């Protein structure tokens, strides 16, 4: 019960959270590092196209398949495009896909889960059944099916990634909303004449936000991997667009002939981004929910 009370809004909680956050980041160098990497990724996503040395789409057949050098840091691909510029520019698209799909699944899964946990009964049964049905599929396979059925676009990759993550969000939100059903602040709000709908959105949802935000940062990495995997097999993003998954796919044919840099650098970028999101998610969880620290 005590942790539920602590989860409520009180004037000191924000500054206490800030102090706790500073403590965790200072204490855990890895989280601080991950946060720095995260800022770098955001910077690359925002400024990337403005600062890269070459046009990511401009081909130059005279400079095709050149290994990394001073003028082309990550080498050039089979069409002579600069791999470094393409990797940096791709950050925006990959980051956008991850953020958009996570935001979408938060809206769908989070709201459905909160409603299921708070109202129980039929709402709970329907949400639970939907989540179970999604979980009956291997997730990546279901995502393939959804993108193939809805049409081969970036927008549908975002939708598919959101749908396969739905059960995870719905379950966390349901469990968290369920324990707050009869919490003191909910009863107070009810006694003050708030409607149930208003209590869900105004009281319960804000109180489970910290846990949902942790969930979002933990699934960001998976969202990027999922999207890159889909574009690796030719779904969603089309050439010549710069995107990490498709760049690895384009470079994979050259791996057996020794031109490793075409696939290596986008793959590395993908790995670093996912690694950073996972570390950040773990760090955020330590801040919000210290008991679950492993």
């Amino acid at each position, binding site marked *: 019960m005590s942790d539920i009370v602590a989860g409520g809004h009180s004037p000191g909680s924000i500054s206490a959270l800030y102090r706790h956050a500073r403590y965790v980041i200072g204490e855990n160098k890895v989280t601080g590092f991950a946060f720095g990497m995260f800022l770098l990724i955001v910077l690359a996503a925002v400024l990337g196209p403005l600062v890269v040395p070459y046009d990511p789409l401009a081909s130059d057949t005279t400079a095709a398949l050149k290994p990394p050098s001073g003028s082309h840091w990550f080498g050039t691909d089979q069409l002579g495009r600069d791999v470094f510029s393409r990797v940096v520019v791709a950050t925006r698209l990959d980051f956008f896909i991850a953020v958009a799909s996570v935001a979408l699944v938060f809206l769908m899964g989070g709201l459905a889960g909160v409603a299921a946990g708070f109202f129980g009964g039929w709402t709970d049964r329907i949400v639970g059944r939907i989540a179970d049905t999604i979980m*009956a599929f291997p*997730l990546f396979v*279901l995502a393939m099916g959804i993108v193939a059925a809805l049409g081969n676009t970036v927008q549908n990759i975002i939708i598919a990634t959101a749908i396969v993550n739905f059960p995870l969000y719905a379950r966390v939100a349901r469990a968290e909303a369920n324990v707050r059903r009869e919490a003191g602040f909910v009863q107070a709000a009810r006694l003050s004449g708030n409607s149930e709908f208003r209590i869900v959105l105004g009281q319960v949802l804000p109180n489970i936000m910290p846990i949902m935000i942790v969930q979002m940062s933990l699934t960001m990495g998976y969202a990027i991997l999922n999207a890159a995997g889909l574009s690796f097999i030719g779904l969603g993003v089309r050439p010549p667009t710069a995107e990490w998954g498709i760049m690895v796919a384009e470079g994979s044919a050259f791996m057996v002939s020794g031109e490793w840099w075409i696939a290596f650098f986008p793959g590395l970028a993908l790995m670093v981004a996912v690694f950073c999101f996972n570390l950040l998610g773990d760090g955020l969880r330590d801040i919000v929910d210290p008991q679950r620290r492993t």
Partner: protein
Amino acid sequence: MLSMIVKRALIAVPSLIGVVIVTFLLTRALPGDPAAYFAGPAATKEAIDQIRVKLGLDQPLIVQFGRYVKDLAKGDLGSSLTTGQPVGQEIRTRLPASAELTLLGLTVSMLIAVPLGIAAATHPGSLIDHACRVVATAGVSLPVFFTGLILVYVFYYLLGWAPAPLGRLDVFLSPPPFVTGFYLLDSLFAGDLALFWAALKQLILPALTLGIFSLAPIARMTRASMLAVLASDFVRTARASGLTPYTIIVTYAFRNAMIPVVTTLGMVFSFLLGANVLVEKVFAWPGIGSFAVDALIASDFAPLQGFVLTMAVMYTALNLIIDILYGLIDPRVRLEA
């Protein structure tokens, strides 16, 4: 025990119904006219109409669903547009390739992850504990297709130890006579050791890729549950009774620690079956994953639908087996049922 199995099998039924409904709805969600989609881009108007009637698309949705279920019951998954072959037959011939790869990948990862997790739990704070943590965090961050490509570059291009990543056997060799469809087993049955060796060489890199991919969750779970078990009363009692550390860890702690690990296998399979598709693409492996990818590229929907359905049914069956195994390992589950 039997009643537990039956009860658990009954729980799988709604999942299967859900799976069939979803795969049916995926076809209906096709943008535009499904008949035009199934007919392919070059079809004439008459051909499209013909297909519409043939597929029963002029009927109400519920009738179409009934027809779909009836075809499924007969094992009919439709025909591929590009090859004209029945999808069900194609999946059956390709399934052993995928199953052999996935199972070997899982074996590789269990052989590495379980001892690693146990060593990390029995020596907390040691170098091996840190190694386990790094593996667990790095493992989930590695895109599986990227790992595969790196392995190909290192072991095929640089070192020349592995054969070219082109399928299950060298093109000059012919596959062993069909018994199980697993080349490793079939070549042994045929007594052909050279063929066994050739098949194993092709398998090692893709299986290793899948193994590295599923290493992280298994190692993390083994470590966590082993730590919990080692801190429990019965282990303390065993220690106090003067049993050797080996007996305590192997006989007492290990069996109990494996219970949560078996439960995680369900999740691991969900990831493995998905990763399988990507690994098959990297290694040109002639399994059902690459079948689905080829169908995707050709916008050929029936094979893809059959593939999604097969995967989901297999996954549900695997979860059922895992739950039954769980009951076998842990008698308490049986009592609750």
